């Protein structure tokens, strides 16, 4: 599988080349176009219960589609629903990413996706449901965001504080705690919940430059309530 980001920036698309009989996992609904040799298998990743728990508890779409080049090599074009940057990661079998529920766009055949139960306090306070995706294995992993993706690299024991609604993904060597924002943060916080994540390195944290929730609220003021 080869991956290429087209139109990098706010409205990107991913071109995935598949060899004959190769597959790619994609968020359902992400496929924009494909060669006629590509078939969609609606296999449920993580079994029925896994899919159900994702759906029920993280609001995730029910299926990850598996797209297979069953009738010969071909290409697939994938795009996320929201405008925002796409980041292409390479998994080598040891690195693992925790991905916020809407962040996954596509993954190679060797990429393993698990719904991971967050520790109770993290899940409840984080406002992201009880499950996040734990993604490991090998091959390309494509994440999408709302706005631009910004990468924060943390050295061992280095800390960084992030408004949790801006989180996209972080490495599993990075630990974090959910905290109440200190007073200085409250004013600038967009989540309205007054909660932030304190990350501690080593590892990498990907954040998105826009917050879907705040954007929704902002846009709502322009929708007229008719007489």
């Amino acid at each position, binding site marked *: 599988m080869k991956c290429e980001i087209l139109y990098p920036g706010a409205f990107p698309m991913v071109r995935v080349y598949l060899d004959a009989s190769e597959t790619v996992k994609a968020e359902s609904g992400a496929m924009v176009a494909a060669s006629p040799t590509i078939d969609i298998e609606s296999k449920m990743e993580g079994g029925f219960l896994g899919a159900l728990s994702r759906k029920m508890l993280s609001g995730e779409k029910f299926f990850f589609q598996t797209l297979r080049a069953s009738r010969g090599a071909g290409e697939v074009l994938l795009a996320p629903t929201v405008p925002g940057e796409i980041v292409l990661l390479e998994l080598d079998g040891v690195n693992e990413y925790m991905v916020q529920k809407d962040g996954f766009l596509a993954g190679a055949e060797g990429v393993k996706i698990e719904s991971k139960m967050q520790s109770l306090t993290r899940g409840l306070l984080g406002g992201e449901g009880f499950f996040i995706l734990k993604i490991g294995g090998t091959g390309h992993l494509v994440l999408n965001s709302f706005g631009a993706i910004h990468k924060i690299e943390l050295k061992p024991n280095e800390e960084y504080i992030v408004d949790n609604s801006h989180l996209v993904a972080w490495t599993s060597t990075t630990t974090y705690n959910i905290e109440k924002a200190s007073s200085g943060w409250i004013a600038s916080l967009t989540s309205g919940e007054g909660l932030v994540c304190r990350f501690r390195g080593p*590892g990498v944290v990907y954040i998105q430059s826009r917050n879907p929730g705040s954007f929704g609220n902002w846009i709502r003021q322009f929708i007229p309530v*008719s007489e």
Partner: protein
Amino acid sequence: MNPIPNALCFGDGLPGVGAPCHVTVSADGLTMVPVGTSPLVEEAIAFADMSVEAGGLDHDQLVVSWGTGSSARTLYLKDPALIIAFRRAAPAELTAHLERAAVQVRRARHGHRLLWGSVLGVVFGLGLLLWFGTDLIVEWAVARIPIEWEQKLGESVYQDFLSKETVLKEGPAVSAVQEMTQRLTDKIRDNPYKFQISVVQSPVVNAFALPGGYVVVFTGLMTKAESGEEVAGVLSHELNHVLQRHGMERMVKMLGLAAVVGILLGDQQGLTGLAKQVGMELVTLKFGRAQETEADVTGIRLLSDARIAPDGMIRFFERLSEKDKARVEVFSTHPMSAGRAERLKAELAALPKRTPEPFTFQWKTIQDSLGVSDPKK
């Protein structure tokens, strides 16, 4: 040949996600071989030169550190076999650290398991109780939800709903509904809610009340009603669904596990997120038989207290159920069960006789303003 990476190395000059490497354990330390193209160089580290702790998101990784300054390195081992090999080979003074780390991991896991186990146990118990028809647990759980939170939820669904509908801002129909509501709410004792009522332009024959006291009356209901008392009857019923917190009870039943867990932990933040997902379903929420009866009975008492002729609702329901039951939405959200009408009549008969006080408006005028040409014949 390139070995398979089994660890990540962090430090100055190395990638932020860690440099993949292959680690092997020997009698006196570790050997680390970089995998792939990497600024990392092969290194052998003696047990005497390293420190060890447990780390990573789940506290299940072995973190080995050595060196100082720019040559400081931190190694994250995740492979269980590798960790076991390390523990066997390492000397006692290192093992003390390790055992402490292992105990930490076990304790954390045990704690999680215990917590989830007890939560599941409680939820399973609740499920059993619910299965056998007891609504007491749900009521108990709902009683723990603060009114303010209920209002927050109701309001967000209410605003969402109204933003998609045509809301009547003023006019005879709006004043009439406000008058009815005022007369009813004046008679509610210890009312924790500030009721908000909107009249929505729609042929739907229904009215609904969201948790927290947000009420919507559709003009379809008003055009089908033959008197203000009939509308007031439905309103009183709706207000009592709110006062008895029926919407919250249905939601807790619907959300099941997650909501109950949220409530048990006294933490409404997570619940708010989940509730948003089912928000719109609140609008079309179907109440249970016991809830209908409760709202009927308390609704009729409230009407009587407010000196509004209390038989309005039952007349309205009876008249509509004769004709087009299937097309009238009010029956789908407030199912009319066998015996419900009888209960209503019995309750009606038991009420002290009070002389009703008429409304200040003429029903005919209200209906004319809604464009009803000939409501009766």
